[in-house]
């Protein structure tokens, strides 16, 4: 919300410098997002332009010597230009002639000396202003020049040139009482605070609301606007009736009336304030409704009374409030015909809908240049309905913004009265005495209570009951102290205070705010630590991440949102017959991110593909959930997975070794073996896998103790073809993280470091091609027993010497006993047992 400082000062004395004021408000929850100067000097420039600026202050400062109030006494034609005029102007120091092209002076051209001089903002040579002819805010310094043969060294200013608004159609014309010769900054210089209104502080979305906070925070009295309605107007009784069909939707409806308003512009100072507050001045009547809304926070709506009478067939108009009927429509004053929802509340008369309650007026009954009799509405609307209406109609308005957060009904009458007073002042007319006021659901202002112990317990500060009461009283709570407890009655302008335990928390916040968050001491929790809980899955997951990084893999984290098409690339070789179920977004940002992923591998492969051309070698992994819908349940299973993807060279090439051995199945297998070792999963079984994503001959399923942990291998060529990979092979793995964590041994035993030397022996065994290496090794280990401590495959040979369809596997074996050095005889015995067993189990022969 934009808050002109001058407006604020109508209600509270402010002697704090601007920067301190901004800090005081920010530290009370009214964050000042920035300040725009409209004339006033910049405190940072006065302080030598420090680098640190706690609040951003921008805008234009008006030089008091160079920009002043002046009066135009006569507007004369320009001798050489039709579109320019010459003004005979007095700037307080003397008379001079100023040239301008402002169209709003043309009416006065050639009329001779003006009976009532025009008060204007006059800039002398050297003044710093915004350039009116350039888009945006471009600073310029006024220089002496000649325009069409006439000397020009100064000018009368538009709002844009002074940084007030975008208005540059004509010069700004001040109110008649502006004192000629006064520095403009002294007359109307201002600073506009941009206040961020928190959702629970709608009571402060008004000048009085913010002034009330300033008053409380700086120990100053608040001067609420005085309502002094002219007496003697005709009585309103009988001029209008009100029918509220549902008090839950419309707690209060107040009408006031003004007769004989003149449609004219508001005083310039009113227009200026509206502009600074971000609203466009329209005419005195409409401006009064907006002005009072900004002033008090109560939105108001003016109807053309004569239109209502006409719609009522000449009878007394009856205002009816109700929810919209199915299929009902209304054309709002922005010219849009709107289809209404059943939650939308309407202000109607007997002829039909007039306006969207609390959001926007209707076209038919709006104020027109012909309007002279005004029926003024101040009402209280259900905030939920208002909010739903602003959302469904996509209509944001100052009124809708306030009503959708809840406005206290007490403000309705106050707002109507103050507005009538302002309207009468600015547009003339006679105010009817009295109001038509239907108030079927009177507000109950809760009394909440809080004790000194509560304040200690919640805030950690020690305050007496009297101190608590004093803090709350500053915000107009009516406080009663009983022992250690303060009973605080909520003032009738806010709806955010509850009762009971909620009221207590509400009061605690207000106490802390006014006391000052900064003054609350930082302490350590006095209470002991709660019991620790076992969290092994989290620890093992952490170990896995670290192990994978140690193995040279880069962790990635992908969007969890994806598309079924993206994931379907993985099943290209074997499309699924029934499409898998997804957690699907109702409101995706884009179709590419419309569902929650089911496959982590698909995500990591996407990333591998994106980076494939950037590096000779890539090895990526991700740990994270996949989302599997569960029939009949609101929430999916969020199954954590581990996915790995690698491609490219085994080692990145160096300056002396450009050989590029490509990674293959065994590179990935090695990573997996090391990972399993790192988290101590023993007895792992690798078996050929059937998985749609992988090459059937170059993939394996990993299991431990009969539980499948995951699958890995080279991508199926048809799957790989879905991606843009240059490398011959892409290696990938997909593991069930929960299974890995469960298989990870929480406890394992180590073997003592051997004291006696091992006997080393190499054995080459010839087996059929179809025999798996793992089976050969298992047979060797079985035969070797406990004394066989190490088995390492160091060569595989195929060739004529051993016959077709056969292979020779060469193993390096270590025999070792814990308690003595093995004798040659013992070693021989082990060797014989091994040879016997491998022959029995895998048909292996010793290669001689």
């Amino acid at each position: 919300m934009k808050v002109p400082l001058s407006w604020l000062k109508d209600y509270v004395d402010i002697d704090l410098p601007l920067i301190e004021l901004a800090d005081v408000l920010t530290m009370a929850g009214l964050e000042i997002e920035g300040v725009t100067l409209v004339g006033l000097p910049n405190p940072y420039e006065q302080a030598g332009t420090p680098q640190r600026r706690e609040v951003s202050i921008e805008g234009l400062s008006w030089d008091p010597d160079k920009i002043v109030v002046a009066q135009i006494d006569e507007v004369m034609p320009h001798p050489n230009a039709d579109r320019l005029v010459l003004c005979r102007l007095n700037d307080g120091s003397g008379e001079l002639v100023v040239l301008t092209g402002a169209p709003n002076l043309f009416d006065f051209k050639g009329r001779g000396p003006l009976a009532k001089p025009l008060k204007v903002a006059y800039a002398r040579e050297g003044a710093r202003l915004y350039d009116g002819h350039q888009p945006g805010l471009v600073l310029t310094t006024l220089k002496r020049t000649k325009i069409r043969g006439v000397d020009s060294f100064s000018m009368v200013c538009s709002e844009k040139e002074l940084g007030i608004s975008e208005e540059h159609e004509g010069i700004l014309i001040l109110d008649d009482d502006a004192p000629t010769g006064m520095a403009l900054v002294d007359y109307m210089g201002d600073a506009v605070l941009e206040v961020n209104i928190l959702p629970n502080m709608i009571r402060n979305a008004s000048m009085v609301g913010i002034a009330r906070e300033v008053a409380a925070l700086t120990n100053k009295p608040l001067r609420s606007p005085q309502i002094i309605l002219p007496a003697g107007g005709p009585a309103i009784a009988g001029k209008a009736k009100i029918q509220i069909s549902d008090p839950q939707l419309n707690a209060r409806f107040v009408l006031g009336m003004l007769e004989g308003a003149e449609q004219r512009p508001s005083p310039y100072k009113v227009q200026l304030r509206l502009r600074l507050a971000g609203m466009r001045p329209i005419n005195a009547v409409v401006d009064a409704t907006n002005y009072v809304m900004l002033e008090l926070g109560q939105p108001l709506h003016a109807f053309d009374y004569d239109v209502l009478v006409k719609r009522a067939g000449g009878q007394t108009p009856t205002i009816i409030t109700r929810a919209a009927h199915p299929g009902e429509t209304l054309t709002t004053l922005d010219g849009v015909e709107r289809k209404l929802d059943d939650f939308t509340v309407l202000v109607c008369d007997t002829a039909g809908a007039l306006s969207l309650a609390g959001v926007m007026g209707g076209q038919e009954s709006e104020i027109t240049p012909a309007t002279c009799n005004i029926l003024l509405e101040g009402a209280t609307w259900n905030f939920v309905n208002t909010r739903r209406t602003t959302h469904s109609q996509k209509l944001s308005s100052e009124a809708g913004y306030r009503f959708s957060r809840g406005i206290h009904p007490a403000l309705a009458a106050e707002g109507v009265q103050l507005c009538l007073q302002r309207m009468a002042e600015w547009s003339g007319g006679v105010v009817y005495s009295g109001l038509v006021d239907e108030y079927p659901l009177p507000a109950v202002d809760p009394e909440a209570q809080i004790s000194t112990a509560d304040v200690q317990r919640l805030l950690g500060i020690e305050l007496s009951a009297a101190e608590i009461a004093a803090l709350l009283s500053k915000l107009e709570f009516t406080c009663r102290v009983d022992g250690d407890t303060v009973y605080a009655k909520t003032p009738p302008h806010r709806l955010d205070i509850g009762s009971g335990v909620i009221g207590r928390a509400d009061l605690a916040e207000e106490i802390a705010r006014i006391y000052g968050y900064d003054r609350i001491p930082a302490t350590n929790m006095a209470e002991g630590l709660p019991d620790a809980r076992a969290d092994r899955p989290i620890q093992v997951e952490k170990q896995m991440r670290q192990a994978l990084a140690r193995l040279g893999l880069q962790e990635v984290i992908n969007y969890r949102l994806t598309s079924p098409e993206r994931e379907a690339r993985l099943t290209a070789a074997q499309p699924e017959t029934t499409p898998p179920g997804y957690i699907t977004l109702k409101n995706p940002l884009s179709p590419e991110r419309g569902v929650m992923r089911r496959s982590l591998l698909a995500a990591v492969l996407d990333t591998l593909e994106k980076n494939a051309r950037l590096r000779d070698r890539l090895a990526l992994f991700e740990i994270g959930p996949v989302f599997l819908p569960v029939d009949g349940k609101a929430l999916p299973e969020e199954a954590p997975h581990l996915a790995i993807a690698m491609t490219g060279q085994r080692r990145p090439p160096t300056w002396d070794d450009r050989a590029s051995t490509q990674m293959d199945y065994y590179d990935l297998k090695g990573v997996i073996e090391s990972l399993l070792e790192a988290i101590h999963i023993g007895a792992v079984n690798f078996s050929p896998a059937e998985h749609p994503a992988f090459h059937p001959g170059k993939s394996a399923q990993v299991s431990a103790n009969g539980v499948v942990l995951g699958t890995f291998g080279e991508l199926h060529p048809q799957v790989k073809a879905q991606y843009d990979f240059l490398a011959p092979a892409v290696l990938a793995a997909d593991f069930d993280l929960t299974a890995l964590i469960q298989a990870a041994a929480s406890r394992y035993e180590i073997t003592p470091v051997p004291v006696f030397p091992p006997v080393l022996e190499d054995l080459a065994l010839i087996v059929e091609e179809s025999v798996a290496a793992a089976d050969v090794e298992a047979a060797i280990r079985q035969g070797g027993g406990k004394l066989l401590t190490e088995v390492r495959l160091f060569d595989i040979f195929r060739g004529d010497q051993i016959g077709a369809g056969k292979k020779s596997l060469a193993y390096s074996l270590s025999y070792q006993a814990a308690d003595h050095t093995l004798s040659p005889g013992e070693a021989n015995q082990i060797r014989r047992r091994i040879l016997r067993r491998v022959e029995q189990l895998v048909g292996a022969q010793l290669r001689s």
Partner: protein
Amino acid sequence: MAEDVNILDELDGIQQAGLAALEGVSDEPGLQAWRTAHLGRSAPVMLAFTRLGQISKELRPAVGQKANQVKLTLEAALEERAEKIKTASLRQKLDTEQLDVTLPGRRPTLGRLHPATQALSEIIHIFEEMGFQEYRSPEVETDELNFELLNIPAHHPARDMWDTFHTTQPGTILRTHTSPGQIRAMRELCPKPIRVILPGMVYRYEQTNASHEMQFNQIELLAVGKNITMGDLKGTIQGFARRMFGEAVRVRMRPSYFPFTEPSADVVMECFVCGSKGCQVCKYSGWLEIAGCGMLHPVVLQNGGYDPAVYSGFAAGLGPERIALLKYQIDDIRYFWQNDIRFLEQF
């Protein structure tokens, strides 16, 4: 007799001649030749021993001793010389093996954790040391847990604070914050006191740009007990900031609004980039916003099973990616999930 005396002089001569010859030896073959000439079987000193028999009995011990001494001296000199030559030749050899030590090394691949993981871990670690234990909760949530039970009823104006991804299943959404985990933790652990951190991914229906993401990590802090005050909240956050950003850093709590806490606060911290002097990172304000926090709202405590008349607690939420953005001056939040290797490799 005179001959006998002469032999002593002769031995002196042999020693001098040997040592002088050794001076000229500069390599291994030279050493060998010298050894043969001066310590070999027919070397003068050796011949002196064979002549001992011819020497008078009285003088024999003196001559023998002298010959022995000369031999030892020559041997010692040889050894010394040999050592010198070896060192010199090694040095010479090494001098020919000079590498260009500035050529790049052969680097084993360095694996790394994602910067978001690193930031998360660092923050989690600090809070763990303060006694907060990690607690995980689902990313796809019910509206009830994400909003209703956190004191954000349907159509409440506070709902505007979170743009939500809805799923096609009514009532099921992507969590907009880690706060539903508060309710889950409370319901699981009630009536025990609680100190947990809830880290994880959250989602916002928001067009992505340099400063907005539709998916980001959050870490939420939750403490529930019988005597937990706003001062404790301040102390906890301050302790965290010191560990994360340095001893001198000052934090400030500013009133704010969250429906699930009251009183609520934003935590701002003196800018660690400029030392609060004003810079681009802190937009010249000297302050950085790092967290939102507050005392648990009584409705939330109640929904978690705790009696707000007896229990109190606090919650705080931090954005690890945001902290990383500030710390590493990353100018585009989208880098995190784009996973460009050129970005990831810098952490």
